[in-house]
């Protein structure tokens, strides 16, 4: 797992319980964050890392209470700034596994700038973005991922903002790893975490999360048994992009080079796109990220959209520092003296 290359392992047998703290969890009953917490605690033992070498850094929001419930090192910082703080941690400590927990407000509103630069630099961070399409902690204002027209406390006549698509943004910000998963799909979430952890560089994982108090059911069409088969597209490497209860819907390349959803019966087998997250060209990944209907959520892809190899910023920084170092300890006295001295006797 290149993403964990410098992090020391442990022989100790870990379980989910190893990662629980004594703090009573304060999320609302029914919050999607519980499922994510359980999935992360259930997954980490698999990595077999020394617990003390794992760090969770969060910003502000319900999402960002996460570190308090993880029995690792953790920091609950300030709104939007976790990726920047985490950059300082990752660059100086190759022996740490650094995770950032954030939300749609924290990462895409106030934190947008730091997010895109972390992605651009490809700092070895695993960014978990809990997207519930609302501001939960401040009690119900709209967020950059809320749909236009949404009625909230600050938009009683409906939001006028066009909404962001986190996967599209990440790809535009040069991301080397972008994925989307769902809080209630434990298996898919765990598999996504596994791939993210293995990745060297910034791994952005958008987790569709339900805020049952302020935006209940925001992702329901993608979760309800009755609708999800026809709405949700699961991307799997090496496989045709197919969905529907009987695999009757497919994603094909159209004449103009664009992609569309079609009925398998209506197209040639050869037109059906075979997905590959490792493709160097982000074009297909980007096109897939644009498929979903913002309001109905129809044709929403989930899975790892992109997973390519690019050296991480922190590794490059350390290599450059190493290259500058000589074989002996640098001479501080010589540095202070400089080149032009004179002596007074």
């Amino acid at each position: 797992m290149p993403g964990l290359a410098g992090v020391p392992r442990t022989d100790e047998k870990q379980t989910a319980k190893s990662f629980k703290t004594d703090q009573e969890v304060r999320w609302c009953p029914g919050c999607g964050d519980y499922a994510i917490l359980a999935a992360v605690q259930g997954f980490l033992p698999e990595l077999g890392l020394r617990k003390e070498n794992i760090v969770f850094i969060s910003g502000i929001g319900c999402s960002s209470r996460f570190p308090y419930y993880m029995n690792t090192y953790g920091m609950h910082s300030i709104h939007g700034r976790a990726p920047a703080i985490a950059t300082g941690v990752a660059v100086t400590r190759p022996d740490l596994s650094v995770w950032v927990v954030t939300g749609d407000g924290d990462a895409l509103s106030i934190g947008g700038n730091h997010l895109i630069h972390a992605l651009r630099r490809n700092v070895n961070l695993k960014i978990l973005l809990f997207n519930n399409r609302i501001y939960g902690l401040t009690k119900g204002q709209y967020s950059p991922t809320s749909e236009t027209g949404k009625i909230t406390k600050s938009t009683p006549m409906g939001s006028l903002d066009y909404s962001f698509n986190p996967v599209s943004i990440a790809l535009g910000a040069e991301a080397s790893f972008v994925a989307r998963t769902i809080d209630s799909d434990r298996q898919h979430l765990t598999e996504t975490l596994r791939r993210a952890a293995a990745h060297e560089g910034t791994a952005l994982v958008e987790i569709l999360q339900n805020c049952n108090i302020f935006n209940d059911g925001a992702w329901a069409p993608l979760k309800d048994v009755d609708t999800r088969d026809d709405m949700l597209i699961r991307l799997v490497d090496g496989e045709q992009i197919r969905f529907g209860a009987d695999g009757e819907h497919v994603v094909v390349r159209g004449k103009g080079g664009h992609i569309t959803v079609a009925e398998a019966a209506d197209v040639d087998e050869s037109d059906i796109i075979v997905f590959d997250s490792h493709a160097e060209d982000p074009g297909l990944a980007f096109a897939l990220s644009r498929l979903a209907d913002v309001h109905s959520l129809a044709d929403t892809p989930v899975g790892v959209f992109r997973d390519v190899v690019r050296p991480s910023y922190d590794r490059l920084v350390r290599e450059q520092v190493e290259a500058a170092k000589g074989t002996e300890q640098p001479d501080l006295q010589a540095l202070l003296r400089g080149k032009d001295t004179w002596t007074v006797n």
Partner: protein
Amino acid sequence: MTSTAKTVVPLGHVVIRFAGDSGDGMQLTGDRFTSETAGLGNDLSTLPDFPAEIRAPAGTLPGVSAFQLHFADHDIMTPGDRPDVLVAMNPAALKANLKDLRPGSDLIINTDEFTKRNLEKVGYHANPLEDGSLEQYAVHDIALTSMTLEALADCDVSKKEAERAKNMFALGLLCWLYSRPTEGTLEFLRTKFAKKPDIMAANIAAFEAGWSFGETTESFSVRYEVKPAPMLPGTYRNITGNPALAYGLIAASRQSGLPLFLGSYPITPASDILHELSKHKDFGVVTVQAEDEIAGVTAALGASYAGSLGVTTTSGPGVALKSEAIGLAVSLELPLVVVDVQRGGPSTGLPTKTEQADLLQAMFGRNGEAPVPIVAPRSPGDCFDAALEAARIAIVYRTPVFLLSDGYLANGSEPWRVPDVNKLPSIDPNFATEPNHDGEFWPYLRDPETLARPWAVPGTPGLEHRIGGLEKADGSGDISYDPENHDHMVRLRQAKVDAIAATIPPVEVEDPSGQARVLILGWGSTYGPIGAACRAVRAEGLDVAQAHLRHLNPFPANLGEILHSYDRVIVPEMNLGQLAFLIRGRYLVDAIGYNQVRGLPFTSEELASAITDVISNL
């Protein structure tokens, strides 16, 4: 190059100001003259004065760039109130600087640039060289540009390149006039233009031509010499404030064993610290030029969290942006050095001019009660020691610390007695390695003396814990909204900063006669001008005391006692009275501010005058 033809007159001190267009190389000329002067052993002090724009239109007033240098055969403290010699490379330089000269001062003027067009550009309706308006000065008319072109006639360079070498002609002339050694400049030119032998030859030819001109021209009948100044024995070099500050941070890294991490964003006049530190990766220094000021300070905070010495560098506008993150550092109680190289404000203000108006921002610029220690250097060389001291406080007390420098110190230079690295103080981070409370680790269980919390960095087994910006319970560090706990924690964080006073030296007062009834209290770069002013006042037979603060928060423990033992306390500041505000509030002393906010240091003359007024009205 030597000369015996003309009389050599000894001088105790000289103030020279080189002034020209931004493209004329005045800073380089000033730097070279300074270097030769330092090497000769004079005491010196410099004041570069340049505009914010990269290259304003040629020959205009906004484009004037100047470099002032004061050098002497004795200890001096300022770059000089007024130049004794003005080298004016064009009409704009003359117009902008003439008002600062005393009658009788020398004017060395490049007459070639005094064309009708250039004169009109800056509002001269007649040529000052011809209309008698310069009668009261000793004018030396020199066709500098054409003489440079003539001297370079045989060189294989374009006319433009030859003209550009006129600053070397001026330098050669001034080096002759003040009997400066020349080998340093020749070596400098050889190295700088090693890959461009034609340019090298041209510049050397121009320099030598300027020197020869001095020897032969009738315009200068004497030359001067300024003997070396008595200095404490030791090894010296010339040092500029920003590099000195950078070296202090590297030294702090060495003395504490913590790797140095700089998270920064370019901003005038602090960018040079970023540049300097980025050159020293061999010392393990990591520099990240972040996407903005906030990313710079938060990356530094993250590095500190992970066990480095986290530093950020900026100026006033950047401090404003960083305030939330600094508040987080106060709450997390982690080391962080915040360097503010102050400049003219408010808002974008005067990027290349000096000021010291961020003191109250440093004291109070955060939400809630968020005390942050403040350290301020007093001279370019002191930037080294102040940086070490700021790092010490940050590390030992687990706190952000402001290091308040200013543009004048950042770009000014002076001789510096190179410290012996073996005598630098050690700084012990004292990392936590064991549980400290019934087999658990409590991140806020403090040292009873320093009130510092234990610092356990990620990777330390068994001490896993979480910290954050929410209020926390004393000891355990768990989130707490309890009313009594919050009151207690707010007071505790204040008490921790106050407790730093126990490890800072008492204020020293300079009062040679012991009879002074008036105290001049300063901080930051006013040290030089205040010192020079006090000398002048004492030379007139009056008694005055001077004290200078390096620590602005907390104040040294004996400050109140000192302030109350004088009849008057005057606080000269380049702001509207910020230190005065603090000491009035803290010590109930009726301090008098003496304030100017011109973007320039005080002159010792104006301060001496103000001090004399106060003394005579006692």
